[in-house]
C-alpha cells in the first residue's frame, strides 16, 4: 500500500467530481461523435496474446463506466452496449487481432459477385442459441429487417444500413416494405445480401452490433419485454449474460457458454462487471485487488506511471480545431496555417492530458487502416502533414494579415465545459494569442449538447472538436470534410478535395489500392494544402491492468475489447 498525501487525494477527488459531473454520457458513443473533451472512463487498451498458459481461477473482474443501456442489438448505440453484445452474441464475422474480419457464424469468406453488389454467405450448422434453437439465415433476415423498420425506431439501424443494404433508405423512409430489404435466406444456412452500391468496408461492417442475428420466435414471443433483463434474452456468443437488470442493479455477470460452437477456445469461466463512475473508486478497488482493470485520469497518471500495472493504449479518436470559413479571416489559408502551426501539441499531450495521448498532425489516426496491398499504415504512408512550428506560423500569420489588410483579428472560440476541456481551451487560447500577434479569442465554454447545437448552426469561428470512427475505412475520417457532407458546418469548400473523394467513393470502389492512394492524396490536400482543420491530438487511455490477465484483444471499432481468448495466468 502506498502512503498518499491526503490533501492531494482530496484535491484529486474534487477535480474528478467536476469531471464526472460534467462529462457523463458524452464519451460513450461506439462509433459516435466525440465530445471534444477528454474524459476519464473505465476503458483501457489491449494486450497481445502472449503464448502463456492459463492457470489459477479463470475469473475476470471488471468495472464499466456506465450501465448497459440496452441489450437489444437493434437499439444499441453506445460503447458499453456494443461491448457486452459483442461478448454474448455473435454475428457473421468478428474482428481478429489484426482488426480483420474472420468467420464467426459464417462458415467461411463471403462469395462476392463481380460488381461487388451480391454477397452470398454460408452459415455454420453447429451454432445454436442458448435455448437450443439453431442459428439460421432467417435470424439475420429478421434482425436486419427489424433494425431498419421505421416502426422499430432504431437509431443505428438507418445509420449503419442506409445506402448500404439495398432499399434500406426507402424502407426507413416508409416508401418500401421491409421485405424488400436486400437480404434473403436462400436456405436455412445460406444468406444472400444485396447492396445498394459497392461498399468497400462492408465486410468489416458485418462484425458490427447492429448486424447481429435475432431469434425471431423468441423476440416475437417476448414482445415489449424483449431484452429488459438477462432472462429476456437469448445468446449465441462465447459468454452468457446473467443477473443483468438495469432497473435495479449496477452489476452483471458473464459465464462461459458451453454450447458456443467454439467453446473449446474460450478459457475464461466468469467475468464479473460492476458499474463504477468515479475514477478514484476504481483505483481504490484496484488497489484492494477487487478488480483487474481500472481507467486512470491524468491526476492519477503521475502516481502510477512506471508501475508494472500501468498501460496506455492509443484509440482511433482524433481531436482538432474546426475553423469556420464563413469568417473572413479564417477563409484565408495562411491564417489557418498560422493557427495550426502555432500550438505546441507535445506540451498539450504531456502536461494537460498526461495519459499517453499523442500529437496529431493529420486527419486520419495511427493504427487504423492499412494499405490493401503493402499492409503499411495509412499514417505512416502520409506522415506528418502539419507540425508545430512557431516561426513558420508567424510568417503565415503576417502574410495572412497583409492579405486581409488588417493588424488584428478577433475570433469566437467554442469549447466544452468540463474541467479538462476548460484547461485545454485555456492552454490553446494562450498559445495562439501569445504566438500570433493581434489575435484575440473570445471563449465560450458550453455543455456538450449546446456545442452540438451551435455546431449544426455553424455558430462558431473556431471549435475544439473530436471524432470517432464509424467503420473500418479511411473515408470515415475524410467524407465529413466534403462540401456536401451533413457534418460540414465549417464551410470548407474545395473542388479539388471533393473530386478526389468523389473518385474514391465511386469510380475506384473496385480498385482498392488506387482508392487508398486517392484518399492519401485527399488528406494531403485537406491538411497540407488547405489546412481546413488544425489537428491537435490522438487520444490514448491510461489504465491499471493486472499483469496476470492475458490475451485480451483491443478493437479499433465496435466492442472496445474482446475477451473470447482472454485468460488468467497466476
Amino acid at each position, binding site marked *: 500500500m502506498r502512503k498518499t498525501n491526503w490533501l492531494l487525494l482530496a484535491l484529486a477527488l474534487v477535480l474528478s467530481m467536476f469531471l464526472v459531473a460534467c462529462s457523463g454520457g458524452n464519451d460513450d458513443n461506439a462509433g*459516435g461523435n466525440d465530445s471534444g473533451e477528454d474524459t476519464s472512463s473505465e476503458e483501457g487498451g489491449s494486450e497481445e496474446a502472449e503464448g502463456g498458459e492459463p492457470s489459477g481461477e479463470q475469473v475476470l473482474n471488471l468495472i464499466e463506466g456506465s450501465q448497459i443501456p440496452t441489450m437489444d442489438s437493434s437499439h444499441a448505440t453506445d460503447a458499453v452496449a456494443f461491448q457486452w453484445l459483442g461478448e454474448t452474441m455473435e454475428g457473421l464475422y468478428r474482428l481478429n487481432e489484426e482488426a480483420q474480419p474472420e468467420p464467426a457464424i459464417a462458415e467461411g469468406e463471403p462469395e462476392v459477385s463481380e460488381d461487388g453488389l451480391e454477397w452470398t454467405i454460408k452459415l455454420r450448422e453447429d451454432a445454436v442459441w442458448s435455448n437450443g434453437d439453431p442459428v439460421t439465415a432467417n435470424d439475420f433476415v429478421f434482425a436486419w429487417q427489424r433494425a431498419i423498420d421505421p416502426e422499430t425506431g432504431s437509431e443505428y439501424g438507418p445509420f449503419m444500413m442506409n445506402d448500404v443494404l439495398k432499399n434500406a433508405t426507402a424502407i426507413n423512409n416508409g416508401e418500401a416494405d421491409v421485405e424488400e430489404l436486400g437480404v434473403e435466406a436462400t436456405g436455412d444456412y445460406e444468406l444472400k445480401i444485396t447492396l445498394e452500391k459497392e461498399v468497400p468496408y462492408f465486410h468489416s461492417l458485418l462484425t458490427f452490433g447492429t448486424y447481429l442475428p435475432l431469434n425471431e420466435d423468441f423476440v416475437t414471443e417476448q414482445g415489449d419485454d424483449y431484452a429488459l433483463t438477462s432472462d429476456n434474452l437469448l445468446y449465441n456468443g462465447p459468454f452468457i449474460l446473467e443477473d443483468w437488470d438495469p432497473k435495479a442493479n449496477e452489476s452483471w455477470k458473464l459465464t462461459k457458454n458451453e454450447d458456443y460452437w467454439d467453446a473449446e477456445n474460450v478459457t475464461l469461466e466468469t467475468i464479473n462487471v460492476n458499474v463504477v463512475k468515479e475514477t478514484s473508486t476504481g483505483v481504490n478497488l484496484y488497489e484492494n485487488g477487487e478488480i483487474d482493470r481500472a481507467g486512470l485520469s491524468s491526476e492519477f497518471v503521475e502516481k502510477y506511471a512506471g508501475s508494472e500495472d500501468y498501460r496506455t493504449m492509443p484509440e482511433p479518436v482524433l481531436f482538432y480545431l474546426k475553423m469556420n470559413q464563413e469568417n473572413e479571416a479564417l477563409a484565408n489559408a495562411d491564417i489557418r496555417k498560422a493557427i495550426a502551426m502555432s500550438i505546441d501539441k507535445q506540451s498539450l499531450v504531456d502536461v494537460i492530458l498526461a495519459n499517453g495521448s499523442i500529437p496529431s498532425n493529420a486527419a486520419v489516426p495511427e493504427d487504423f487502416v492499412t494499405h490493401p496491398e503493402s499492409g503499411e499504415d495509412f499514417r505512416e504512408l502520409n506522415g506528418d502533414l502539419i507540425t508545430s512550428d512557431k516561426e513558420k506560423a508567424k510568417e503565415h500569420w503576417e502574410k495572412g494579415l497583409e492579405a486581409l489588410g488588417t493588424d488584428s483579428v478577433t475570433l469566437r472560440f467554442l469549447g466544452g465545459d468540463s474541467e479538462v476541456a476548460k484547461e485545454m481551451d485555456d492552454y490553446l487560447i494562450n498559445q495562439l494569442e501569445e504566438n500570433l500577434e493581434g489575435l484575440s479569442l473570445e471563449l465560450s465554454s458550453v455543455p456538450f449538447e449546446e456545442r452540438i447545437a451551435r455546431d449544426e448552426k455553424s455558430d462558431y469561428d473556431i471549435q475544439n472538436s473530436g471524432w470517432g470512427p464509424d467503420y473500418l475505412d479511411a473515408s470515415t475520417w475524410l467524407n465529413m470534410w466534403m462540401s456536401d457532407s451533413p457534418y460540414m458546418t465549417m464551410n470548407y469548400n474545395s473542388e479539388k478535395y471533393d473530386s478526389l473523394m468523389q473518385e474514391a467513393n465511386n469510380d475506384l470502389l473496385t480498385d482498392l489500392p488506387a482508392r487508398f492512394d486517392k484518399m492519401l492524396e485527399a488528406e494531403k490536400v485537406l491538411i497540407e494544402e488547405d489546412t481546413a482543420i488544425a489537428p491537435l491530438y490522438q487520444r490514448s487511455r491510461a489504465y491499471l491492468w493486472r499483469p496476470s490477465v492475458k490475451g485480451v484483444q483491443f478493437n479499433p471499432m465496435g466492442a472496445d475489447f474482446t475477451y473470447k481468448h482472454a485468460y488468467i495466468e497466476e
Partner: protein
Amino acid sequence: MAKYIFQRLVYMFITLFIIATASFFLMKQLPGSPFKAEEKLSAAQLEILYEKYNLNDPLPIQYLNYLGNLFQGDLGVSFQMNNQPVTEILMSRIPVSAHLGIQAMIIGTIIGMLLGVVAALYSNSIIDYASNIISVIGISIPSFIFAGLLQYYLGVELGILPVAFWGSFAHTIMPTIALAIFPLAISARFVRTELIEVLGSDYIVTARAKGVSNATLMFKHGLRNALIPLVTVMGPMAVSLMTGTLVIEQIFAVPGIGEQFVTSIMTDDFPIIMGTTLFFAFFFILIILVIDILYGIIDPRIRIAGGKD
C-alpha cells in the same frame, strides 16, 4: 387537525401539478435530443425517430398526453434504457437511497444532539470547543471529501470495510457516515445555541429551585424547547441529504435514485427526468408537511394556531 392535514394535502397536489408543468416545459428547453447518435443521423432519419416517439407533436399536445398518463400513474418508459418502465426503475432505486438517507438522518441528528447537549452543559470548556470544531468542519467540508477519505483509509489502507458496491450492511456504513456528517454538524450547532438560551431562562431556574433532577430538567424541560429550531432545519437537512446522495452514491457505486437522476439529465432521458423530479418534489413537500405536524406535537402553541378544531 384532520381538516388541517387535508387542506395541506390539497395544496400539496396543486404544488406538484405546478412543478410537473414547470419541469416539463423547462426540460423541453434542454439542448439536444434523447437520441445518442443525433450528431451522426441525417435530418430525415431524425425526423422519422421524432415521429415514432411522438416528439414531433406540438408541445401542448405532448404536455396533455403526459398529464393524461401521469394521472393514470403511468410514467412511461425510458429512452436510454430501451423500454424499461420508469415506475419500476424508481421503485427499485428509491429503497436503496432511502435506506442510506434514513440511516444518515437518524445517526446524524442523534449524535449531533448529544454533541450539542454536552457542549451546552459544559459551554466554553474544552469539550464545547471540540464540538464547535467538529461542527464547523462538518458544515464547511463537502461530504464527498469525507467519502473519499473514508474510502481510502478504511477501505484500502485498513481494509476493514468494503470500498464500494451494495449488498450487505457493511456496504452501507461508509456512505452513511459520509452523509451523516452534515446533519450531525447542523444539529450540534442548533441544539447547543438553543439549549444554552433555554437553560438560562426563568422557568428552568424555577424548576431547578423546586428540586427537579438534572436529567429530567435537561430532557423534559430543556431539550424539548430547544428542539423547535432543529425541527425547522430538518427539512433543508433532508433535502441536502437528497442532493448529497447524488454524489455519495456515485463514489460508493451504489445503485440509488440520485445516480439515475444525474444520468437521465445528461442523456435527455425525458421520462426518467420527469419521474425523478416528481419524486424529489413529492418527497420535499411531504417532509415539509411532516415537519409542520411535528411542530404541533413538540410545541402546543403552534398546534392551536395551526388548526382550530
